[in-house]
């Protein structure tokens, strides 16, 4: 078949674009090189829905950040994704930084960010008692929030699929041929997908995909290391606490996550696209800098550390969202770094508009259902609702992950529902099984078993995250 649109890259931009296009009478295929969605820049970042005071007025970043943030709450409600409008502060430690904070305020006003004010250090500590006494003042932003980026992406892709979109995983695009009417998109193992229009939302690899379309950009991977602390520490601050950006860098944030943990980070360093390793130096830097903002960060409660990669474009500080210069039925979404997550709902709409500008007919699909059905998170149910659910499906009564209280029923749901989990990490990101304080020590053997049974494969074929990441080497003697 020939799809109307092929979207290359199933991160948050590709996922929300697929969902946006499924509103119309279009056949859509979302193509992803990895074994699951949301494995690139989307997987590991600060998980912040920014207010929008940071981007320079007049840029796409400014416009789409403010617009996207305003859309986020309703979008998350439709998709059953946990979103919290927790607000944020940019703290200043001296007069010079305070001046910069005031500039950010002005920028925010110019960008149309609601709920901004500059507050004193005392007021900041009144709102967040954990803040350091060295804080001289802060920019308070009431409109920012937190969301789990892969949760959002998984839900968006699932919803797009429920509305008819296809997902092609493990499809590493190596060539795109254009015969003037259709594109033939070729994978490294010889598979082909045909589509009339192409959207390039390949994140870190969007420059390589653009080159296949005849466009030239350069993406540099910027590495950010983070530490995640136990839920026991999640209440240290309610708001996201940023530091004032200086010449030395953007500073380190301290933030609760929607799931109740505490996140500190990131560092920022140029690296190569495949490098997701954490470093001793990086983790030390985070500790040192984060402790400037808040006094009592309990690093003994760190449950994991990880690295995220940001896809920064060498040619532009702004997002690049444009029709290909060489191939008029293709859209490039390149350089979607921060505030990409915040902007993603607006970027999806923007891309749909660009496709329309390029000649794609957007005709409303009356059957479109924007709500994610059958996906009420078990843990959020009342006791009576839980009991009703367990009566219907007893596996909801069996706790598999003790740290996060994840039941067998939820794991089965993750494996059976679009986009289907097929790996340990896939189950983890959908259900939080293995994401708690023991980091899967207890539940991994059980999850392995459930995946093997459900997918009808041997236990030793189960992988952590696709490819050669097998957990087991076969039977004991």
């Amino acid at each position, binding site marked *: 078949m020939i799809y109307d649109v092929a979207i290359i890259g199933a991160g948050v931009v590709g996922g929300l674009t697929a969902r946006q296009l499924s509103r119309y009478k279009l056949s859509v295929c979302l193509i992803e090189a990895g074994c699951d969605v949301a494995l690139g820049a989307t997987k590991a970042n600060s998980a912040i829905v920014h207010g929008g005071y940071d981007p320079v007025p007049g840029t796409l970043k400014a416009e789409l950040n403010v617009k996207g943030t305003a859309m986020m709450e309703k979008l998350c409600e439709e998709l059953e994704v946990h979103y919290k409008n927790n607000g944020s502060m940019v703290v200043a430690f001296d007069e010079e930084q305070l001046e910069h904070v005031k500039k950010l305020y002005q920028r925010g006003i110019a960008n149309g960010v609601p709920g901004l004010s500059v507050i004193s250090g005392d007021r900041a500590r009144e709102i967040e008692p954990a803040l350091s006494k060295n804080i001289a003042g802060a920019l308070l932003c009431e409109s920012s929030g937190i969301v789990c980026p892969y949760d959002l992406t998984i839900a968006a892709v699932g919803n797009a699929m429920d509305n008819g979109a296809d997902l092609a995983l493990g499809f590493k695009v190596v060539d795109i041929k254009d015969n003037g009417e259709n594109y033939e998109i070729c994978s490294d193992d010889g598979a082909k997908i045909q589509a009339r229009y192409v959207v390039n939302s390949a994140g870190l690899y969007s420059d390589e995909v653009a080159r296949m379309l005849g466009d030239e950009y350069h993406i540099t991977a910027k590495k950010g290391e983070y530490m995640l602390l136990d839920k026991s520490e999640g209440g240290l601050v309610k708001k996201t606490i940023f530091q004032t950006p200086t010449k030395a860098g953007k500073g380190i944030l301290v933030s609760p996550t929607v799931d109740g943990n505490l996140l500190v980070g990131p560092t920022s360093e140029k690296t190569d696209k495949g490098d997701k*390793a954490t*470093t001793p130096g990086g983790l030390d830097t985070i500790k040192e800098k984060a402790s400037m903002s808040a006094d009592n960060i309990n690093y003994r409660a*760190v449950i*994991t550390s990880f690295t995220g990669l940001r896809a920064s474009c060498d040619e532009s500080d702004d997002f690049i969202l444009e029709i290909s210069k060489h191939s008029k039925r293709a859209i490039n979404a390149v350089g979607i770094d921060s505030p990409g997550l915040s902007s993603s709902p607006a970027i999806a709409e923007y891309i749909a508009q660009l496709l329309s500008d390029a000649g794609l007919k957007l005709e409303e699909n009356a059957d479109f259902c924007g709500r994610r059905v059958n996906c009420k998170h078990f843990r959020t149910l009342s006791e009576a609702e839980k009991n009703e659910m367990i009566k219907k499906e007893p596996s909801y009564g069996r706790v598999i992950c003790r740290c996060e209280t994840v039941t067998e029923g939820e794991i089965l749901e993750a494996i059976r529902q679009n986009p289907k989990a097929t790996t*340990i990490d896939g189950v983890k990101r959908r259900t939080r099984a293995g994401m708690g304080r023991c*980091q899967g020590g207890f539940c991994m053997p059980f999850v392995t078993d459930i995946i093997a049974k459900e997918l009808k494969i041997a236990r030793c074929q189960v992988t*952590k995250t696709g490819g050669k*990441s097998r957990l087991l080497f076969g039977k*004991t003697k």
Partner: protein
Amino acid sequence: MRTCDIAVIGGGPAGMAAAVAAHDAGIKDILIIERDEGLGGILRQCIHNGFGLHRFGEELTGPEYADRYKKMVIEREIPYVVKTMVLDITKSDGGDHIVTAMNSESGVFHINAKAVVLAMGCRERSRGQLNIPGDRPAGVYSAGTAQRFMNINGEMPGKNVVILGSGDIGLIMARRMTLEGANVKMVCELMPYSGGLNRNIVQCLHDFNIPLKLSHTVSKIHGKERVEGVTVSEVDEHLRVIPEKSEYVECDTLLLSCGLLPENELTKSAGIPLDRITGGAVVNQNRRTEDKGVYSCGNVLHVHDLVDYVSEEAELAGRSAAEYVLAGKKEPECIKTVNVHNAGAVRYTVPQVVDIYKEPKDIKIYFRVGAVLNNATITVKCGEKTLLSKKKRKVAPGEMEFVLLTEKMLGEVDSDIIVSAEN
């Protein structure tokens, strides 16, 4: 609401021993709540021998040891539920406790219990908590996870193995994996001494020519999909990595055996104070927590070296809970309460609090040291008075020690007790 006299949270060695002792002390209305598929706890996967020397005077495997207690539970017809997770413990208006649990048969349910025994065991320190830098491939397991894969599921988690941490599970797994044909290249230990039992070092490493590299750690994990190797580095006296003294070791698996942490999330949510060092509840000599009617025992209280001591402690907790219920929810009459402090090389004691009863009974104070001491002097003081002083040829962090305070000594206690171990 269901009711019971004593709810025991956890059906491992501690929970079973506590329930049996409570039953024998005269309480029949007990419920053991276990989250796994059967009673036995972590012993179910500990198929090596060495259990029960103190308790039964013979060497048993873990499942055999567990079976002895399981038999006692079944003989006494003590009720238990499995595949059931306790979600919450709260106080009832009447001073009892309400245990909220969930399983497939009953959904979410509540039990009103006059007394609760906490016996949830412990978990292993994970890679994330150790903050080992590098990639995040498959093939990094805590030793207990690998043990479960091998001994319960019958699957091999690796072929070329480096083990970080010389805790007992790590040592046991070095032998277990070798016997299954894996190549265990080395066991690295950050400290200049092993945290495991001496007998395990001899029987699991020396007997198989597996090198134990003291003052070494894994400073980086390599491998995008599956582990391909690790960087092993020597550390200085401040435990900092010496980059020049690092080597790359090819392997497909890294096992972590870097300490156990009592699993006290329920205890914390019930508002029961914990000891910062043990990670378990603060208890008196009866293993009663600061919350009246709630007892704690086994590895959820503090990590034990031998299961035999877990059983002993759990029996004390179970018996104490039973006596409390039989006395109409009353504790023995108490003259005064004193704290137990650490000094010298002593890292912690259990109990942390001693209630001097009108009719005192002998008390064992367990402790662990933070460093290896040869020819150690162990003393127990109360103010200027020395209650006890004894010599020990060697004390080490891997082995639990105890001092016995007799009725007579307790009669002399008029202020806080200090336990010390010095060279």
